[in-house]
């Protein structure tokens, strides 16, 4: 369980997040939605311990991120919106580095690598340098790096951004399958992704969590037929 308890975050004098509280169970896909500047990336950076909240706490699997950061983040993996991989490394070196830094045993690494390489179709680029990869492969390598340690919580910033249609469909199917064994939080602007994947939606606006509901509940709440229309209605209203 990942619990966010009344967190507030200021960057300089500006309040970016205001009294955010929610929890994530051990599986399913939660979409984090909100207009630009709503605080989505800041919230995700708080969840991985990159930023420290000014008030409140985040509890991951019983460990406070504030008091026991190392134990807390050992259950979390993160993929930023762009980059997140070392350009000078080969794909294999990057995945090995990510496994080493998370203290994954050699046997687990071999098993996870085989699984991820086949699920994400990475075999052909394994010896290729990350800087030479296409956008689609870069995203998949970054996701494989995050999943190499079998985390309980996976946090993805715009996972389908820049992917072609086939890649998007494949990635959605992969994430949906993976969400049976780990909780996934995705931040996205692509409403198709939300419709296709999300079991739950968190809606942020001006640093506040204005809605925490299942997709159907969100539509009924906004009295709209699509998530996109509901999003506009709730954010503007």
């Amino acid at each position, binding site marked *: 369980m990942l619990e966010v308890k009344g967190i507030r975050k200021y960057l300089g004098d500006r309040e970016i997040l205001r009294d955010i509280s929610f929890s994530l169970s051990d599986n399913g896909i939660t979409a984090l939605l909100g207009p630009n500047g709503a605080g989505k990336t800041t919230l995700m*950076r708080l969840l*991985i*311990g*990159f*930023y*420290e909240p*000014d008030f409140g706490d985040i509890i991951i699997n019983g460990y406070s991120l504030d008091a026991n950061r*190392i*134990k807390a*983040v*050992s259950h*979390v*993996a*993160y993929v*930023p*919106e*762009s*980059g*997140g*991989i*070392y*350009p*000078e*490394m080969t794909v294999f*070196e990057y995945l090995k*580095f990510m496994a*080493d*830094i*998370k*203290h994954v045993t050699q046997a687990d690494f071999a098993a996870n690598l085989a699984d991820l390489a086949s699920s994400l179709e990475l075999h052909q680029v394994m010896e290729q340098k990350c800087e030479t990869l296409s956008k689609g492969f870069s995203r998949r390598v970054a996701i494989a*790096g995050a999943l190499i340690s079998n985390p309980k919580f996976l946090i993805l910033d715009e996972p389908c951004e820049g992917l072609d249609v086939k890649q998007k469909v494949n990635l959605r199917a992969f994430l949906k399958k993976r969400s049976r064994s780990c909780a996934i939080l995705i931040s996205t602007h692509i409403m198709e992704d939300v419709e296709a994947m999300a079991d739950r939606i968190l809606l942020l606006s001006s640093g506040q969590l204005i809605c925490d509901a299942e997709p159907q509940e969100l539509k009924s709440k906004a009295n709209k037929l699509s998530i996109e229309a509901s999003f506009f209605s709730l954010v503007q209203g």
Partner: protein
Amino acid sequence: MMYDALTCFYKDFKFYFASRIIYLLLALYILISVGLTFWGTDFYNDSTINLQQFFANQPLVFAIIIPALTMRSIADEYRDHTLEIIMAQPISRLAFVLGKFMAAWAICGVMLIASMSFWFLLSFWLALDNFWILWCYVAAWIASGTLCALSLLAASFFAHMLSAFALSLAVCFLLTNLNLGWIGGLFTQHSLLALKIAGSFSFAAQYDNMISGQISLSSLMYFASTTAAFVWLTGAVLDYKRR
């Protein structure tokens, strides 16, 4: 923590060799080091030739080379968004910084080893005090560690490599050329003691002490403690940036 630091060290050490810049820096280091040894000295006519000039110039040479070496160390992590990834891993900031420091310091070791060809070449013609030279190499490597740590500390303030380079260069020059003797002059009543205390904080004085041929515990302590302090402060700066 050491395992994590070694994982980061291995990654960073390989990263240095993945770039062509390292070979350029290596060539530049040899060129400046050897050039300064011959330039403005009576090298050929000196009957007591012993590479004194070469070692005396090492802090100056490293003060130029090390900022260029470390400027990308943290800036590239910001650029590639890998700092977010690393900071989301179950490793301490200190282990991360220690890995970066060890990698930069190891590169300084590689540079010093490469310069040994100069020593071997001269030893064919001249009767050199080889034990003293070997000790001076160790002293230069120890001193380069302090500059690596200081340079990383300066680089940790910036997400852009040129800003990191500029500040690192400035602080490395300041540290290597700062003569703290004037502080002693302020305390005329106890000037000898004050001079001694001020001198004990001077990088140049401690380095000169090391290459004078004596293995001084206080000098070793000076370099070890300043290096440790700079590494710790770099971790603290990265930690502070979370707030």
